[in-house]
């Protein structure tokens, strides 16, 4: 049985007609299939490869750009913080200076007012003492003239009393 089968296969031998048909058909098939299937397919695959490659490149670029921007922003933030700190420090200093000035001015004002008041008081006191002196003088003269009557002239008497009173004033002071 097997012998027969093998003989059938071999009996045909090589047929040139078949070979020519096979060759021509295969060449036509190769040409058609390459034009209509493989070329477009390979093009699409290549295009996709390029697309992916360019996308990766772009992503890398974006990444670097983002990093750069982030660094910039960080620097900016640091600068701003420093500036803000500077401003706050300045303000603090100014405020302190002002405070000191104000306190100084207030103290001076207070001292001046006190001095003025003291001077005024002194003046008033002097005035009062003077007024008292004059009044006491004339009163004493009146009293003395009433008491001693004609013993002394009025000018001598006043001089005497003034001397006396001055002594009393010095002692009191």
């Amino acid at each position, binding site marked *: 049985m097997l012998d027969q*089968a093998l003989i059938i296969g071999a009996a*045909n031998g*090589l047929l040139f007609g078949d070979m020519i048909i*096979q*060759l021509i058909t*295969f060449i036509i098939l190769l040409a058609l*299939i390459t034009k209509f299937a493989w070329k477009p*397919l*390979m093009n699409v695959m290549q295009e996709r490869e390029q697309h992916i490659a360019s996308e990766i490149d772009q992503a890398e670029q974006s990444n670097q750009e983002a990093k750069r921007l982030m660094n910039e922003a960080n620097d900016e933030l640091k600068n701003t913080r420093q500036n803000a700190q500077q401003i706050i420090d300045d303000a603090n200093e100014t405020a302190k200076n002002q405070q000191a000035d104000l306190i100084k001015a207030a103290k001076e004002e207070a001292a001046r007012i006190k001095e003025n008041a003291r001077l005024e008081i002194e003046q008033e006191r002097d005035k009062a003492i003077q007024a008292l002196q004059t009044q006491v003088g004339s009163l004493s003269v009146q009293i003395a003239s009433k008491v001693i009557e004609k013993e002394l002239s009025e000018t001598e008497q006043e001089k005497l009393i003034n001397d006396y009173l001055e002594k009393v004033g010095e002692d009191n002071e």
Partner: protein
Amino acid sequence: MILDHGAPIYEDLFGISWLDFNLSNVMMVLVSSLIVLIIAIIGSRKLQRKPSGFQNFMEWIVDFVRGMVSSTMDWKTGKQFLPLGLTLLFYIFIGNLLGIMFMVVYDGDLWWKSPTADPSITLTLAVMVVALTHYYGIKLKGGKGYVKDFFTPVPLLFPLKIIEEFANTLTLGMRLYGNMFAGEVLLTLLIGLMASGTLGFVGGIVPTIAWQGFKLFIAAIQAFIFVMLTMVYMSHKVSDDH
């Protein structure tokens, strides 16, 4: 007996004595080519950058053959052989498959079978492949480099190199033919056993199914081997170092 079928031979076309045709081969060659063409064209319709469905499958095959090419030679040189490898792979695989599904015998002649189960067909493919390797050898390395290849590493090897060319051609064609023809013979025997009676049917159905499955495997392996060897022979001719 079922094995007693012959072949539909048409002799002496146009009165030329050596121009004989096996009409079954002619038909099967055309059928295989048509199927391959239709599959490839359907597979590469509406190509998109984001592939889906059939396009994925086609791209997988392209990648597969690309892997074969780049494993044997520089991809820059091998790029031009990709369509050849793809077409060979598809054509031989489909041709192998056609004989597995069924065989049709009409009027005592075997009409439907694998085109690759015939030495005329497989040897034609082998001769074509080897002729292409020589063509590309001359084209890419120049006449001098091509001839020089026959005398390297030592001139003593020249006769062996000549023999090698013929041996390559013969083994490339006969390997495919032998595998597919043996498969069909065994399948025919098993089907003959199944047709012989109830006992034969019961005994024969499991081996038949198993053998059909195995033949499917052989069909793929043989197509792969044919393309792989094509690329190996090609790289021998076109690469500078081997």
